[in-house]
């Protein structure tokens, strides 16, 4: 069982510093999690540390492939509002 970082990662290093298993490493185009080292913080913390500090919704996936931080959960922007704003901007 392991978490996974996907392409929306902005390489901010926050997760690297808080991972208790040193499972996260710098890579291109974005940081990655070594699945063999990742423990999902099971014996160390109540919360998965990388997912708890990551500022980007959807950048970290849980073992079942679902986002640890789904759309709207970190910014507080309702996803439909964000879509609407993006459509407006693109139409300019």
């Amino acid at each position, binding site marked *: 069982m392991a978490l996974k970082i996907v392409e*929306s990662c*902005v*390489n*901010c*290093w*926050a997760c690297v*510093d*808080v991972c208790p298993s040193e499972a996260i490493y710098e890579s291109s185009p974005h940081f990655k999690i070594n699945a063999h080292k990742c423990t999902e913080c099971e014996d160390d*913390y*109540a*919360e998965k*540390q990388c997912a*708890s*500090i990551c*500022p*980007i919704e959807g950048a970290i996936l849980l073992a079942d492939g679902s986002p640890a931080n789904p759309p709207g959960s*970190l*910014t*507080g*922007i309702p996803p439909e*509002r*964000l879509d609407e*704003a993006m459509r*407006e*901007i*693109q139409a*300019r």
Partner: protein
Amino acid sequence: MELSVLGQNDAGHHSAGGCSSGSCGSTDDQLSHLPDHIREKVHNHPCYSEEAHHYFARMHVAVAPACNIQCHYCNRKYDCANESRPGVVSELLHPDQAVKKVKAVAATIPQMTVLGIAGPGDPLANPERTFETFRQLSEQAPDIKLCVSTNGLALPDCVDELAKHNIDHVTITINCVDPEVGAKIYPWIYWNNKRIRGVKAAKILIERQQKGLEMLVERGILVKVNSVLIPGVNDEHLKEVSRIVKAKGAFLHNVMPLIAEAEHGTFYGVMGQRSPEPEELQDLQDACAGDMNMMRHCRQCRADAVGLLGEDRGDEFTMDKIEEMDIDYEAAMVKRAVIHAAIKEELDEKAAKKARLAGMKAPQLGDEALGKGYRPVLMAVATSGGGLINQHYGHATEFLVYEASPSGVRFIGHRKVEQFCVGNDTCGEKESALSGGVRALKGCETVLCSKIGYEPWGLLEAAGIQPNGEHAMEPIEEAVMAVYQEMIAAGRLDQDQTALRANA
């Protein structure tokens, strides 16, 4: 509130704002009332001294990408080379690269006196990268002042380390002292290995900020407080923030306008939170100024800015260019010392001249003029530094705004000429720089510059702003007073006393 720490001059001399003497031109005049040991620390710091920012340059190195909180005015995804605002950088550096860059800039721009670490995340949420940079710099470039800005969450844990590296300037961003207000600004913090949200998160953050502020003051480290003015969220509340941080010993308060555009993808931008008008910012700064030294020349620069405030020469110092430079820092330090001494001499002369003029300026208007209570006038100035009117109107990317009134001239703030991003099609529409300039000058009656073209002249006049190129190369404050006196003599201030602010 009694002023135990700052020893500001008699509040009775204050008029509308923080101006303390007849010739008051800027917050710097307020700094002149600070104790000597503080003045000595800030006299060549462009971010702390309004006077110094015309002469000395600063740089930020982007070594601190991680953050431990989320603010509603920040989007960690954003990076656009055409944008200039905190939290935005183009090139993240490792500490070794950062040190190399600082030495290259210091050798090329000898006026660069200050190195700050400001992000793009929170410097103290990246303690190893931040302190490794400071450690190397204090050894290798001892003639550079080091400073850091932080959201304050990790600050109490870092105070001893900051003191160890001889960092004598710290900026804390404090937007609130009330957790209910804070919950509208900060959606979450990462604290003790948990993501904490809402009022509980804001309460922890506020406690840590206040504790950090107290600890820094105890150790004699200068603290500036930054606040983002968010209309309807913390505007009234910032007066209380200003009183409290001053009472705890912060020496300067910098209230900055919220930047919120939908295309930035921030919560405030997308949700349609408005930014304050320049007048709202000025009114709040004036309201706080009775209690606190206010900073009005902040340019809200990027986390990797290089150069004088208001300019960014970052493009000259990308890592690939720096790798090719051969820097002899020992030699550079000698040259830097000579140039710093020359600037100091010029500033001292200027201060002496100002002191001479202080006694005569207000009376020049005549008692009769003072008695008439002429309304204040806002004037914009195009300058490329040195405290002079020395920039072509068309070259100005920003204008400095001064207020002239019967009691003298004071610096109000700066106005950016909006330059719309042309980097990609999500960055908003292009707009002619001409009308952008006119819009930036809203509320000003005159714009002083070294020269101005025919076309903008007409546009400005049509907008009710008088272009003036007659004071080219003159010191700003003297020229502004001269124009004000001309306006009085021409009877332009006799008529309508309130028209301008009302229209603004």
